[in-house]
């Protein structure tokens, strides 16, 4: 599977994320000759334990996420980032979780936007919104390099692409930047060959950073 980086929008201190920034980013892709291919959507769920005794809450993970990816319509991914766990399952695992009645999805988010082809790259730019709201909570951008599956071998070309992207975007003087977070996939039991599980872990990390940013702004 092609290597993919997942960037998220990091607003400058004092500024917030909005649909306008998404529009600018989308227009920027088109300005560097990205060819629009259509829409994309991913869904993320935060799960909380249902407890008969609330005093034991600390025993259970606070960062249990589930995500369905646009590329893998029949699969579902669970991540417990604090314990470096990522699991790929059939979509039916969601029904199993419902039947177990031990965990419930408390917050659900959509990642949605447009997908572009740009030479050997596939780009997806999208907003992060709660499922029953249009309130933009963040912006993400997937950068996929189609010819290569090895993360090490693709690193240089991805970094070069991002330099071009940052330069193109900087002309729009937006109050923030797209950030890529490096992480040690080995801790999650994942190797150099890229898989959808890598993407799931990336999204979990992006969410953690976005939450930290929001909390910092509020603080």
């Amino acid at each position, binding site marked *: 599977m092609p290597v993919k980086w997942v960037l998220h929008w990091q607003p400058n201190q004092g500024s917030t994320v909005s649909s306008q920034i998404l529009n600018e980013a989308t227009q920027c892709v088109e300005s560097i000759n990205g060819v629009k291919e259509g829409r994309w959507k991913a869904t993320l769920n935060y799960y909380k*334990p249902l407890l008969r005794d609330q005093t034991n809450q600390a025993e259970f993970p606070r960062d249990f996420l589930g995500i369905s990816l646009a590329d893998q319509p029949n699969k579902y991914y669970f991540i417990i980032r604090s*314990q470096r766990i*990522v699991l790929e*399952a*059939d979509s*039916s695992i969601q029904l*199993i979780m419902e*039947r177990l009645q*031990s965990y419930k999805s408390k917050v659900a988010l959509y990642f949605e936007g447009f997908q572009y082809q740009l030479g050997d790259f596939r780009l997806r730019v999208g907003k992060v919104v709660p499922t029953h709201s249009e309130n933009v909570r963040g912006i993400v951008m997937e950068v996929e390099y189609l010819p290569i599956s090895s993360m090490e071998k693709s690193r240089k070309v991805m970094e070069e692409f991002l330099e071009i992207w940052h330069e193109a975007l900087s002309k729009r003087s937006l109050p923030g930047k797209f950030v890529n977070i490096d992480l040690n996939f080995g801790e999650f039991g994942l190797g150099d060959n890229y898989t959808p599980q890598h993407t799931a872990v990336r999204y979990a990390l992006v969410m953690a950073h976005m939450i930290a940013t929001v909390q910092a702004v509020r603080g």
Partner: protein
Amino acid sequence: MECVVQGIIETQHVEALEILLQGLCGVQRERLRVHELCLKSGPSLGVVPSEVRLLCDLDQPDPTWTVKHVGGAMRGPGADQISVMVRTLIESKVSKNALRMFYALGYKLDHELLKVGFAFHFQRTANISVSVSSVNKMPKVHAIDEAVPVTPGMQIVDVTAPATPANYSEVAAAVSSFCEFLAPLVHLSKPFISTGVVPTAAAAAASLMSDGGGTAL
């Protein structure tokens, strides 16, 4: 959802049953070597206590994992009239660290078993699976290589078929009808309602074995 019946057979008659099944099913038998882990929710977790099964297929070069949730059986007068159990069943293939994830979520290992035997999967109105296996327990946690039979000399026969709310009657009928062919060797009934071994199984087995398995059924 699935339709399911179970029965027991003495190990000495398993070979005869295999010959019978080979003739009936018309497909190659598959080896069965499955490590089944039954997990239960910890004391305070969940609206109600819950149970989930993890199955590891050890017969593959790279073991594959499945999560299985078995729900309640259909009840009531309608269910009583059907000779097979109809129950909800949801399965999901999962990557290999499912056990670690469920432990992290607060599930505990209740018991584990190793099932070793063979299975036939074929189509007869419904997709029917027949498995014949010895059920083995482990003296230490996950000690598959040290597993010993729970009931030496006896094996379990499972017949299952996936079903939907719309077709479970037809599937149940197909399973019942198929089970009648196995009646000389094994009596199949709803799980937890055991009818014991077939008293005349020895004679039936002898007949099948002496036939060399070559007679078409």
